[in-house]
């Protein structure tokens, strides 16, 4: 039996990190939105490590914030410690990482969803989509509720036909023993989607009382208050530390001796796991020359004794996990509260998506997060935001948004997925971005606020503040470019004290700042600004001036590619009609159906000759149309 349960602009299936961003974005830009999740107690749950951010990922969180998303704000309210990473390196790779209180993170997020005026949050399991004339028009739940909508976003994470593997034990389950979603997976296959089987894993959790922290090294948060969101004004100062310890020969021998009981090596696990987060058994086997591996002990929250054992992801049997833990300094008497496990799940081959994250097979159907073959909360949230934004925009008959590779890490992520696909769970790495000097964590607002406002996700108040900041940056840059610093004794003294070589002549303040040993502070000492500027302004001034040459080089690269980006390929192009394409290229082009010549050129197997031929074909069409008029 089914019943009519309501009608919405957008329905979001799932309320994990992708789902919450999708639901909020859609609702906030004016689409009446419904979110359906299997378990309301698990909204924005962190089934694996209790942390947000880090290299590349932290920049994604900033980008989400600049586009009006929630992840940054939520973690700012609920972390137990925060650190800026890579401070000794260049500005392009600095990134924030926070340890989350995973429980308050969930509660805060749920509160935000519940209080969002245009958003309805309910519990239920979606089993089928309503697809008519190749368009998705709603969903049907396990209980027979039929919800109609103009667009649907699926964010099912690892729930699709999830299976947990723990030693010799294997059972059907979502993450953390949640109900898996089996029928929806089958339904997607019926609709003609190609699915692949991926695998990921998580380490055991232990009781803090049973840890001897004196045998470990403390890893405190930063002394300086930090925040992801550009809107955060209240900082958490009371932080909890993490702790560092190591595996040893004994640990490794124990693992070696129990490999026959590992589902990884017995052939029980068939899904492809991510190389960047191998299990401890994988590390020991593949890098057997390493005498030790790092283990980070991370509290899962302020009101729990559970501690996440980072570095020990495993699917070995429970009894072996217990023994492994106890070989580690500080954990000799540890009490394991939950065992680690591996989970296999279905995800869809992401080349079946347009860069808007809409599926090519079914119109108005979007997918985001782990279902698209990614891994990581931030990757999921970034996609969720874009899918929700686009579903919302489409339901309101507005133009959809595609971020380019030079706009944002989120653009890199989505372009990689839909253009190249992935044969393992995809994680963002800074090396995936060819313009990482442009995609810094410090300038996410400068890159994306404008767009966030355009789609209606940034408030006027925030936008005003943003414009003021932008103006302050430009004015201060202009000031420093206009002032000549004379080689007075004060100036020489200041330069010498920093180990620099003395001035021979007057020098532009901006040129002096370009010297490696100089910072904005130093310049400020000799030619003070009229009023003290905000730190986020002076930071921009310093970075933009100091790395001007390199930034300029990157911008030129972007500019060179622009023409290729602007060469659009019509959706209805018939690749079989083009003579001269190599057969591999033809097949790949038919599969990916790139929207621009630049995207086509990024497909592996499509070589420059094919691009030339494609271009000629496109131009031919253009010329033919012109002459026909």
């Amino acid at each position: 039996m089914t019943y009519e349960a309501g009608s919405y602009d957008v329905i979001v299936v799932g309320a994990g990190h992708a789902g919450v961003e999708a639901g909020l974005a859609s609702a906030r830009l004016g689409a009446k939105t419904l979110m359906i999740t299997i378990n309301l107690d698990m909204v924005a749950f962190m089934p694996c490590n209790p942390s947000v951010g880090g290299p590349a990922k932290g920049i994604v969180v900033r980008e989400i914030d600049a586009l009006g998303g929630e992840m940054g704000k939520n973690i700012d309210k609920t972390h137990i410690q925060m650190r800026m990473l890579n401070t000794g390196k260049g500005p392009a790779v600095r990134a924030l990482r926070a340890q989350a209180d995973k429980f308050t993170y969930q509660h805060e997020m749920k509160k935000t969803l519940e209080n969002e005026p245009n958003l309805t949050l309910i519990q239920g399991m979606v089993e089928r989509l309503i697809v008519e004339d190749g368009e998705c028009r709603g969903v049907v739940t396990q209980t027979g509720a039929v919800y109609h909508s103009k667009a649907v976003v699926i964010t099912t994470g690892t729930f699709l036909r999830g299976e947990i593997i723990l030693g010799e034990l294997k059972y059907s389950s979502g993450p953390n023993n949640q109900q898996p979603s089996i029928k929806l997976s089958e339904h997607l296959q019926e609709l003609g989607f190609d699915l692949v089987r991926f695998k990921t894993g998580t380490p055991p959790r232990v009781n803090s009382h049973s840890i001897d922290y004196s045998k470990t090294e403390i890893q405190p948060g930063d002394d300086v208050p930090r925040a992801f969101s550009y809107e955060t004004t209240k900082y958490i100062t009371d932080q909890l530390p993490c702790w560092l310890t190591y595996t040893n020969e004994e640990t490794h021998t124990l693992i070696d001796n129990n490999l026959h009981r590992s589902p990884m090596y017995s052939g029980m696990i068939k899904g492809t796991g991510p190389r960047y987060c191998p299990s401890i058994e994988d590390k020991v086997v593949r890098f057997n020359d390493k005498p030790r591996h790092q283990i980070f002990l991370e509290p899962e929250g302020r009101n729990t004794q559970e501690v996440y054992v980072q570095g020990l992801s495993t699917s070995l049997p429970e009894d072996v996990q217990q023994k492994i833990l106890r070989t580690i300094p500080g954990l000799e008497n540890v009490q394991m509260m939950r065992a680690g496990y591996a989970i296999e799940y279905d995800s869809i081959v992401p080349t079946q998506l347009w860069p808007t994250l809409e599926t090519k097979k079914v119109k108005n159907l979007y997918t985001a997060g782990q279902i698209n073959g990614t891994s990581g909360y931030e990757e999921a949230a970034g996609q969720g935001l874009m899918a929700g934004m686009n579903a919302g925009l489409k339901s309101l008959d507005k133009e959809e948004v595609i971020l380019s590779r030079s706009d944002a890490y989120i653009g890199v992520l989505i372009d990689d997925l839909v253009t190249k696909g992935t044969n393992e769970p995809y994680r963002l790495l800074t090396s995936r971005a060819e313009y990482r000097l442009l995609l810094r964590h410090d300038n996410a607002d400068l890159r994306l606020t404008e767009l966030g406002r355009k789609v209606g996700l940034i408030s006027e108040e925030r936008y005003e503040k943003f414009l003021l900041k932008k103006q302050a940056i430009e004015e201060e840059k202009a000031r420093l470019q206009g002032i000549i610093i004379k080689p007075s004794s004060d100036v020489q003294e200041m330069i010498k004290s920093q180990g620099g070589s003395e001035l021979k002549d007057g020098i532009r303040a901006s040129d002096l700042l370009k010297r490696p040993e100089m910072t904005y502070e130093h310049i400020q000492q000799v030619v003070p600004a009229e009023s003290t500027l905000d730190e986020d302004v002076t930071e921009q001034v310093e970075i933009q001036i100091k790395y001007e040459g390199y930034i300029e080089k990157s911008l030129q690269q972007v500019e060179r590619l622009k023409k290729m980006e602007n060469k659009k390929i019509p959706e209805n192009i018939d690749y079989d009609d083009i003579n001269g394409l190599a057969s591999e290229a033809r097949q790949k082009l038919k599969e990916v159906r790139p929207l621009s010549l630049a995207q086509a050129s990024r497909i592996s197997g499509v070589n420059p000759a094919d691009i030339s031929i494609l271009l000629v074909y496109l131009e031919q069409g253009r010329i033919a149309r012109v002459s026909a008029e």
Partner: protein
Amino acid sequence: MEFDTIAAISTPMGEGAIAIVRLSGDQAFEIADRLFRGVGGKRLKDVASHTIHYGHIMDPKTGQIAEEVMVSAMKGPKTFTKEDVIEINCHGGLVSVNRVLQLLLNNGARLAEPGEFTKRAFLNGRIDLSQAEAVMDLIRAKTDRAMNMALGQMEGRLSKLIQKLRQEILEILAHVEVNIDYPEYDDVEEMTHHMLMEKASYVKKEIEKLLQTSQQGKILREGLSTVIVGRPNVGKSSLLNSLVHENKAIVTDIPGTTRDVIEEYVNVRGVPLRLVDTAGIRETEDIVERIGVEKSRQVLKEADLILLVLNYSDELTSEDENIFKAVEGMDVIVIVNKTDLDQKIDMSRVRELSKHHKLVTTSLLEDQGVDDLEEAIASLFFAGSIEAGDMTYVSNTRHIALLNQAQNAIDEAMQGVEMGTPIDIVQIDLTRTWELLGEIIGDSVHESLIDQLFSQFCLGK
């Protein structure tokens, strides 16, 4: 990249009175202006379209004049490709036109693919629609041929060398990436400026070595340009005749060239010599005497090899000393001729003057010492890592251009290190080096960095 500014030699390969390098694209004028020095500092961007201008092409790196040229400046759309077009008319001969092309490629132009000017003409609506298919066939056929050639090269030593070099760079890149993406992993040593400099210097040296072989490659195609110098009556003509007769000379008299140069090609133990300006030598006209030390240095600089002839039976004169001064720092073989006569020359002074050169004694009249001379020529050419039997060298213009660009990129990386620029920013230039080398062997897949990352380091939660 589809919309770059492209350049290529547009006249047929081989000797002609003039040779033309064509440049087409948005940046044609900008790139040409980086190299062109017109009369009175004239900039091509300021001249009227479809006009021709006299001037010089300068190497902006060294500030030296590379070629005397006439440049046609044509703004689009009234050009062959409908884009901005610059045509540089050079003196005939492969050497000069190639040098101009290389300078363009080092300064922002990309070497045109086969048929690419035609393709652009088509894309910009210059060529009739009915020719579209033909253009596509052309692109396919020519690109396939080029690819086959590239594949052929990939089998060779060149590709092995480049792959090895790329692997070196890849390991550095992976190391830097790991430091960035996994900042807390203490298993991995932090890459320092010092380490980076060491590795970068190694890469630079290897690229330079390859570029040196490119010189040899060029020489193998075009001959080692060789000039015989010496006072009158020291035996220059005999030397020429001796080399020519011993080695089955090919005497070419190229008609229609402006300069009426007769060049003789001889093959000395596998080294092709192109004896330049031999006409002058036949008339026993002495180049140094005629135009003075400074000026003759300029002329001699064009040469790959100098054969400096002295008279054993005469005392050293100030003219001889001047010649030595003029050839300082070049590849020189000093030949003390006429050992059949009584010695008047001060051999200890000759040895002192020749301390950076090879020295042989001959009696060309009695056919003595010619073997030694040939040995000296051969050993000079084959010095270094290149062996006579295994001629893997870089000869392709595209490859040379890419190697030059790779060299520039690694130079910039090293400058960055010296400046104390953060390593992850220096890496931009290092990555560029890696990509450019990859283009040579047709492999620029970015994914391999990530593969390297995970095979080299142990990472994870």
